[in-house]
């Protein structure tokens, strides 16, 4: 919403600077988005004194003048202005100046008028972008002439204080009344405690006919159209609006069209009430019907586009056809044209949500619909229509007929809201007296008596005591409310167990050199093919977005790998030597499709790495993590080959107490290729929730050993397909109570080892708490271990 400061001054005399206004109005609740300065476009216009006036040899209506602009040589300017005289001091647009001329802003060029050279242009007040309202001393027609003594060659813009500031506001949806100059003026007046001057609306009604004799109005759906006023104007003279009106429109960002349309736009800006004008002769049988559109009905709107309508939409129609989409845009079939004889002003109230939905459906959000959708005051159309016809009379562009047709089946009255001074004070933390509050209410035209507040109908947002409290706070000043720290009941700030675990996971990853990533939670369904996920996999059952920003963002992820692989790919293709990343992020698993309840949202730890890493490197990272979280002893890794996007020979299932909680391994080379990653990517995916449930930070100190450990090294010859887990399981099972630790220290293939075999070497450590072990005590379990290894795994002790 654009507010020209000079227009504002018609309704309230603030007597302050624009900056001060912005600061204060911001703090009383109207949010300023930006400011721009008007007349910035007017350049190079200086004062000049007419020295000579001579008739143009070849043109009756033109004169040739010499003008002193304070330079050595006077300028020769040809003009048609009627009010010039020798000695007059006037604004002169020099060659290169910009002023409003003809259709709009124009750059003045050196030129010849009927053969005589002219080096500039003398300007009327309108050509400088202003009106006789702003400068009453200016002639209605002709060049502006300075009354007072002014220096020659001086900047006219400065001399006449022409610059205006346009303040742009962001109006919140609860304040439809502020979508108007008048509404903002009311706020400004309240903010500054100055009197607010509502427009003085008077209509003479010179037309001889009654509107009621010219037009009928029928509202078929009063729910969507609470009020419809029609007012007729005869003998209209369609033409351009005067410059002052055009300038006000352009200052507010509205393009002038013709006087009648401009009037409707002017009233919309000033009063906040959208209006429409129909050519009365295009309305069949002169009957306006407000009804729902018919199935399959179409209308061509003013912008020349054909629009499909449906029965949820409200239209203005005559007996045969729709002539406008209610509150959105008029139809081409009823638009005002040059030849219009009589017109009909519509000033109506439509249901906000209905206009919003209609505008959205037809894909046409107009200035009018933007206002209607907020929900306007049904008492506003009366003043608005009268304001419009008052302007018709002011501009002399038609004869206003007597009376109007006003369909307003259920008049909306102001309502009252109960309040108490004490409870408003209690909510705000203020100590205002009853009278102080009553006075603050008065500022916003709310009549209050200490118990009841009577709300004007233009404030639909005021319906409860809390709303009233906000009005008090706004004009008492949010900044004046004393700052306190809630005493209340003390609470202890803390993190939950899983939040602490999450922090610990992050800390551990960071200390292992892995950086934190964040990936999108939605992705493309094509991801499943890219990851080779089978067509019947439950992973393909996704929470699907009905209105996504395109297919690439259409499903909530059920696997985290795509985001991680994309991140690795980004790094790889930007030639980063390595990337070690982790993410703690959710997957979204529906319980049923379509959704009947909220899906499971499970946080996953996803580690992804390439460069300077191998399988055992990433496995070690997971082991370290499990150690930190106190579950290392409960974790087992076992070979696995059934994840389609993983390398089948380099993949381990991770289980906790026998329940799988994730996996670690190398990405399948064809998947790595699909993601354009030239290095071998390694990943680990672990269910955070299951991990967090089991994680513990409880630790119990075990006394440091007093007696030495006895270690035995054994080297075993086993077949290639024997995995160390099986060996270790046997060592643990047969090691007895004294077994302290086992350490794999060598795996060897080659010389002395037969083809298809490998040598695996362990250091097995035994210790007793209360004594130094004898050789015999150690030999017995080692013997058992070796026997079992031989029996189960065909393992031979190497000499």
């Amino acid at each position, binding site marked *: 919403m654009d507010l020209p400061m000079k227009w504002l001054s018609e309704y309230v005399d603030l007597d302050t600077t624009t900056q001060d206004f912005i600061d204060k109005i911001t703090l009383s609740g109207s949010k300023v988005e930006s400011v721009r300065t008007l007349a910035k476009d007017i350049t190079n216009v200086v004062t000049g004194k007419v020295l000579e006036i001579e008739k143009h040899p070849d043109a009756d209506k033109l004169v040739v003048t010499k003008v002193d602009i304070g330079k050595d040589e006077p300028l020769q300017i040809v003009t048609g202005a009627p009010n010039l005289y020798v000695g007059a001091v006037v604004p002169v647009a020099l060659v290169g100046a910009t002023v409003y001329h003809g259709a709009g802003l124009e750059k003045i060029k050196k030129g010849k008028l009927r053969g005589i050279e002219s080096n500039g242009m003398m300007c009327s007040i309108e050509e400088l972008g202003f009106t006789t309202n702003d400068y009453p001393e200016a002639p209605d027609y002709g060049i502006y002439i300075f009354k007072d003594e002014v220096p020659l060659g001086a900047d006219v813009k400065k001399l006449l204080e022409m610059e205006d500031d346009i303040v742009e506001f962001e109006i919140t949806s609860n304040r439809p009344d502020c979508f108007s100059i008048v509404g903002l003026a009311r706020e400004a007046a309240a903010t500054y405690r100055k009197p607010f001057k509502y427009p003085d609306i008077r209509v003479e009604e010179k037309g001889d006919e009654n509107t009621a004799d010219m037009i009928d109005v029928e509202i078929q759906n009063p729910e969507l159209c609470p009020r419809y006023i029609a007012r007729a104007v005869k003998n209209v003279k369609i033409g351009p609006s005067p410059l002052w009106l055009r300038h006000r429109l352009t200052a507010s960002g509205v393009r002038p069209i013709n006087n009648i349309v401009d009037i409707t736009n002017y009233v919309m800006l000033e009063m906040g009430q959208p209006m429409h004008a129909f050519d009365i002769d295009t309305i069949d049988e002169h009957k306006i019907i407000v009804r729902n559109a018919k199935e399959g009905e179409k209308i061509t709107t003013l912008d020349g586009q054909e629009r499909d309508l449906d029965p949820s939409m409200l239209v203005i129609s005559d007996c045969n056809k729709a002539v406008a989409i209610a509150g959105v845009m008029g139809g081409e079939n009823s638009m005002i044209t040059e030849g219009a004889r009589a017109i009909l002003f519509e000033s109506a109230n439509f249901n906000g949500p209905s206009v919003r939905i209609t505008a959205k459906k037809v894909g046409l959000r107009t200035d009018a619909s933007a206002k209607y959708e907020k929900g306007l005051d049904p008492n506003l159309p009366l003043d608005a229509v009268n304001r419009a016809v008052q302007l018709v009379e002011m501009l002399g562009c038609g004869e206003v007929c007597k009376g109007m047709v006003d369909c307003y089946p259920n008049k909306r009255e102001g309502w009252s809201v109960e309040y108490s001074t004490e409870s408003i004070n209690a909510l705000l933390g203020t100590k205002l007296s009853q009278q102080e509050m009553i006075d603050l209410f008065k500022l916003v035209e709310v009549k209050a008596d200490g118990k009841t507040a009577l709300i004007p109908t233009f404030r639909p947002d005021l319906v409860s005591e809390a709303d009233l409290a906000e009005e008090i706070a*706004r004009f008492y000043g949010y900044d004046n409310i004393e700052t306190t*720290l809630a005493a*209340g009941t003390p609470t202890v700030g803390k993190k939950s167990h899983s939040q602490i675990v999450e922090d610990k996971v992050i800390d551990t990853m960071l200390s292992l*050199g892995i950086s934190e990533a964040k990936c999108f939670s939605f992705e493309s369904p094509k991801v499943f093919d890219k990851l080779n996920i089978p067509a019947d996999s439950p992973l393909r059952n996704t929470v*699907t977005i*009905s209105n996504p920003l395109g297919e690439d963002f259409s499903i909530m992820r059920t696997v985290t790998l795509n985001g991680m692989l994309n991140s690795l790919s980004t790094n790889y293709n930007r030639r980063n030597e*390595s990337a070690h990343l982790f993410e703690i992020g959710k997957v979204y698993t529906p319980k049923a499709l379509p959704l009947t309840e909220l*899906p499971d949202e499970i946080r996953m730890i996803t580690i992804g790495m390439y460069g300077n890493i191998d399988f055992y490197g990433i496995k070690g990272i997971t082991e370290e993590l499990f150690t930190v979280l106190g579950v290392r002893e409960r974790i087992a890794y076992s070979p696995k080959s059934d994840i389609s996007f993983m390398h089948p020979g380099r993949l381990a299932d991770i289980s906790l107490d026998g329940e799988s909680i994730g996996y670690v391994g190398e990405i399948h080379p064809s998947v790595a290729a699909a993601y354009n990653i030239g290095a071998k990517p390694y990943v680990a995916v672990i269910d955070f929730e299951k991990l967090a449930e089991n994680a513990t930070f409880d630790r119990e100190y075990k006394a440091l050993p007093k007696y030495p450990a006895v270690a035995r090294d054994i080297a075993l010859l086993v077949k290639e397909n024997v995995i160390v887990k099986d060996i270790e399981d046997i060592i643990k099972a047969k090691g007895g109570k004294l077994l302290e630790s086992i350490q794999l220290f060598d795996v060897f293939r080659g010389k002395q080892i037969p083809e298809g075999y490998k040598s695996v070497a362990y250091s097995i450590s035994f210790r007793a708490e209360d004594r130094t072990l004898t050789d015999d005590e150690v030999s017995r379990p080692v013997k058992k271990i070796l026997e079992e290894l031989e029996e189960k795994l065909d393992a031979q002790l190497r000499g």
Partner: protein
Amino acid sequence: MKEKLAQIRDKAIQKLNEAADLKTLEDLRVQFLGKKGELTGILKGMGALSKEERPVIGQLANEVRADIEGKLEAMKTALAAKAQEAKLKAETIDVTMPGKVTELGHKHPMTQVIDNIKNIFIGMGYEIAEGPEVETAYYNFEALNIPKDHPARDEQDTFYINGMGDFLLRTQTSPMQVRVMENKKPPIRIIAPGRVYRADEVDATHSPIFHQLEGLVIDKGITMGDLKGALAEFAKGLFGEDTKVRFRPHHFPFTEPSAEMDASCFACGGKGCRVCKDSGWIEVLGCGMVHPKVLEMCGIDPKVYSGFAFGMGLERVAMQKYAISDLRLLFENDTRFLKQF
């Protein structure tokens, strides 16, 4: 004999002084003090001395031995020091060469911002609440006093699941207010950070996925002054002790009165700069007193309890704090970006 002893001493000390390494010292020790050494040799003639001379010469011999031993030790120490010095010199390295370390990983800037805010509020007695991102229309809208026809419910802003039905991706963290109030009796002090979703095309300043943080305080006798106090403290914690705040009236359907809070620009201190677009202020959060209707819907009696709520976008904080110019960087995970934090 006295002379001989003196000669041995002088000779030994002179030779010791000339010794250049530990081996020479050892040879000299053997030569003078060894079992077959010169001093021992002399002392073998002690038997021939008179009774009176014997103790005198004996004492002298001991003195000579002590002198030589002393010198020997001193030379040993000196030579060892010299040898060590030479060794250390040989071990000199170029200390300006780079250090060796396993580089630490880097915490995502968003997480750093969230951690920072969490710590401030935990210090003020708040707990951290978590909740679902796939939400129902009831929690995301209805219970927050956003009725069915409100513009905020426009399909344009909200991602829906199952058509325009009951399920959607939460557009704000505010549903957490409702979830907490339904499950917890006052006093309530919580913050709830998390992901939210809105249908904005991806560009430098927009992302369909971003982070918000919600805060809620419910207790008896909570006032707007308390809201101002708590959030002013928060702003100081986040932006520095000298930070000033201002509250501007605003509109949110689920708070009344509502406000937006600006903080004095942390970059220029309020003088006006690029960060604050010359205004001296940066917009930090939206807040307000919890709407009585919201309290009622959550089963909390607005006549007994009152409270305040606040919500803020976190990407903007991170972008301002770290001068990040493009939002897309936050989800790209380029390690050259992440390593800067």
